[in-house]
């Protein structure tokens, strides 16, 4: 085989520690171990066809930046001029430029899988200091790559079809935006939402920072658009149960939970709600600050505007009595016999937009959240100031309905917390929403004193710092650098024991309402969804992006995209930006008719396979199956699912399973080249 070896300087990255010119010279000496020639008896493991006389580094060169146009041209020219049948590039990690060099080889007419990379940067020049030793090591690495490429076979990628349909999991602003963008590009989208209505947390908010736009006013048009768009199918009160497949051909099973109401017949009149006798159920949308009935619509602008029967609290489902809603319903839309429906659908891409929840405050007893009605969370505060909330937007204390004379905000409850109680990260949105809450209070009640206990005030977005300063300078909100040790309920008020760090003294005062900025965490189902999608999540449970800087909306699992808080704490502008970005990536796949697959997949030699099936259990991707029929069976690898991890090849006791591009013989040759 005629092999060409190219050694990159990578500027000074490699050149400073590895003598690149010498390396390029020495590789030409073929299979050498420091001597100028070798006899076949020294290397018994080298097969005759690879004997030194047929060794074939017929061309070698070094160059400053092989990844640059000039470098690529050098490679393609050499392939053509010298009839190269195999190429070794000694440069940076294959993760950086393997694809680049493979494309160059292809352009010159060489099968791209007859090109190997020797990593002499991350694995050599970047970790050693002694030039002679590093150069010797680089030579060993080059020899290993040469040994491997000698045994390389041409490989040809396969093709997958792409189902032109997207699945968006999560119907908050992130999911809605992603769905709208994909739908606008002309592709069908299924938007699945667990609760009875789309809208998510944004629907619960009062105003949004820094513009103080009414949240529902900017959200509901998008909700309505999502419901009425011809390309979007809403599956509300539904959950994804199972996902199988791979990019281009996912299959998902969606459970449409039984509402007990026929969506097609319901007019959203609300008569059933009025008739329902079970009125004391804590309303989740109101964060438990108001009650709802057993048959309910979560909020007035719900999309779809169709009620759901909560079977855990409905008198009929619990003890067979009532059915008053059925009687009150004129279009006869109530259907107690309705059952969950399972639908299976095929998708080309999946977008995960499963959102967040505030953490439970059970472990933070010092703030008295469970013991005092007037200690509330920020989300509960949003409901209090919201005109559609439990008090009609009037700022009233939950305990006695009075207007508070003083409101105290406590930041970082459970955030920036390295102990087992809390979350180590900053929840990002709380400094801004607290400034917003403070301003909203002052607008309605300028005479109410507002104080905020903070560790830092973080205002990284556009117009954020100005917004916070407005709270302080224009509205007179008192910001105290310090934290609260304990909140004590006393005589209908709340006494706080706190520390003012700039005064370096204790600050004890009496207040009427305490608002806790609780940390955020990924919503409860995120773990389940992550496992279903085989999408990695980080130590805090947030879905991980493939690369934090350069691939922020893609999961490492091909075909799965991420947006919103499911991926990490962020505010609405960032969520919408991420959603559109995820949609863009999704569209990039959907618009293709075919996807090229990785040809470095496992393959079983039918003659050697004895059907033991060990590989089937080892495969993490479910890519191997035993072909049905008479004994002995042989296994079959689905090359679309196979990710080329090589586990099966390692496990196979008979050596029948091999990994294309990383065959047993190739790896043995590499080891021999390094060790012998």
């Amino acid at each position, binding site marked *: 085989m005629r092999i060409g070896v190219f050694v990159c300087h990578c500027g000074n990255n490699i050149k400073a520690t590895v003598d690149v010119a010498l390396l390029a010279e020495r590789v030409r000496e073929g299979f050498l171990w420091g001597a100028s020639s070798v006899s076949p008896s020294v290397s018994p493991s080298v097969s005759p066809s690879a004997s030194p006389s047929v060794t074939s580094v017929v061309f070698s060169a070094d160059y400053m930046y092989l990844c640059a146009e000039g470098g690529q041209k050098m490679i393609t020219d050499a392939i053509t001029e010298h009839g190269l049948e195999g190429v070794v590039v000694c440069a940076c990690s294959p993760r950086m430029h393997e694809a680049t060099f493979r494309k160059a080889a292809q352009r010159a007419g060489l099968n791209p899988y007859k090109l190997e990379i020797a990593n002499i940067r991350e694995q050599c020049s970047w970790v050693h200091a002694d030039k002679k030793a590093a150069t010797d090591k680089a030579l060993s690495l080059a020899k290993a790559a040469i040994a491997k490429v000698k045994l390389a076979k041409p490989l040809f990628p396969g093709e997958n079809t792409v189902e032109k349909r997207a699945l968006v999991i999560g119907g908050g602003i992130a999911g809605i935006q992603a769905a709208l963008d994909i739908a606008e590009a002309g592709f069908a989208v299924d938007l699945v939402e667990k609760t009875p209505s789309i809208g998510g947390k944004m629907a619960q908010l009062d105003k949004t920072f820094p513009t103080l736009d009414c949240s529902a006013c900017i959200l509901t048009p998008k909700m309505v658009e999502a419901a009425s768009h011809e390309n979007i199918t809403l599956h509300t009160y539904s959950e994804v149960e199972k996902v199988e497949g791979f990019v281009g051909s996912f299959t998902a099973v969606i459970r449409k939970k039984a509402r007990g109401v026929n969506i097609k017949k319901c007019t959203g009149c609300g008569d059933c709600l009025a008739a329902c006798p079970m009125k004391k159920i804590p309303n989740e949308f109101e964060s438990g600050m108001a009650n709802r009935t057993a048959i309910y619509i979560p909020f007035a602008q719900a999309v779809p505007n169709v009620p759901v029967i909560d079977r855990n609290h409905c008198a009929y489902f619990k003890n067979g009595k009532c059915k008053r809603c059925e009687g009150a319903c004129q279009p006869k839309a109530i259907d107690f016999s309705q059952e969950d429906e399972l639908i299976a659908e095929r998708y080309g891409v999946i977008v995960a937009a499963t959102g967040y929840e505030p953490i439970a405050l059970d472990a933070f007893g010092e703030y008295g959240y469970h013991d005092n009605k007037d200690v509330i969370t920020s989300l509960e505060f949003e409901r209090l100031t919201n005109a559609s909330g439990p008090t009609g937007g009037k700022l009233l204390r939950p305990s006695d309905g009075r207007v508070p004379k003083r409101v105290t905000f406590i930041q*970082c409850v459970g955030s*920036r917390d390295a102990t087992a109680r809390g979350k180590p990260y900053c929840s990002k949105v709380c400094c801004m929403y607290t400034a917003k809450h403070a301003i909203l209070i002052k607008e309605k009640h300028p005479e109410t004193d507002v104080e905020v206990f903070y560790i830092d005030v973080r205002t990284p977005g556009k117009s954020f710092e100005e917004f916070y300063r407005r709270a302080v300078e224009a509205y007179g909100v008192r910001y105290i650098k310090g*934290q609260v040790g*304990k909140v004590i309920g006393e005589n209908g008020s709340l006494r706080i024991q706190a520390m003012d760090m700039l005064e370096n003294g*204790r600050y004890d005062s009496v207040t009427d309402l305490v608002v806790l900025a609780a940390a955020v965490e990924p919503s409860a189902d995120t773990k389940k969804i992550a496992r279903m999608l085989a999408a990695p999540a980080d130590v805090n449970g947030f879905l991980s992006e493939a690369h934090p800087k350069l691939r922020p909306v893609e999961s490492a699992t091909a075909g799965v995209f991420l947006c919103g808080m499911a991926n990490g704490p962020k505010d609405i502008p960032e969520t919408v930006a991420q959603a559109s970005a995820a949609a863009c990536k999704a569209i990039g796949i959907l618009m293709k008719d075919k996807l090229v697959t990785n040809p470095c997949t496992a393959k079983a030699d039918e003659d050697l396979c004895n059907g033991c099936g060990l590989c089937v259990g080892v495969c993490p991707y479910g890519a191997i199956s035993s072909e049905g029929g008479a004994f002995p069976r042989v296994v079959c690898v689905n090359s679309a699912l196979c990710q080329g991890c090589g586990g099966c090849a390692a496990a196979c006791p008979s050596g029948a399973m091999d990994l294309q591009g990383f065959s047993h013989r190739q790896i043995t040759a590499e080891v021999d080249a390094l060790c012998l």
Partner: protein
Amino acid sequence: MISMTNKCMQCGRCSAACPMATEMDLPPHMWVYRINNGGQSSVQQTEAIWQCLSCFCCEARCPRGVKPAHLAEEARGGQGKFTNDKGKLLENISANANDKIPRQLLVAALRKAGEPCA
């Protein structure tokens, strides 16, 4: 020596939680700060480290896992004295000891007065 003082982000929760903070010349977050910057000697002359009750409220509420009560005891022990500079400690113990006080209080008071580090 417990060396976690640089985990402190000076949030102030320890001092807010401390029952003795209002009496101390240097509240807990300050002695953590000083020990971090100047070592134990920078707090050894304070009353505060002797006023610590070892009630662990500070440690229970600290979000970073800093242990001000441990640091105070280390600072006391590092002086190898039986009393603080004011010299009141042992006098108070002998003056106030009587039959009714729980045995553990006597032992604890003597121990807290600061035995020299072995």
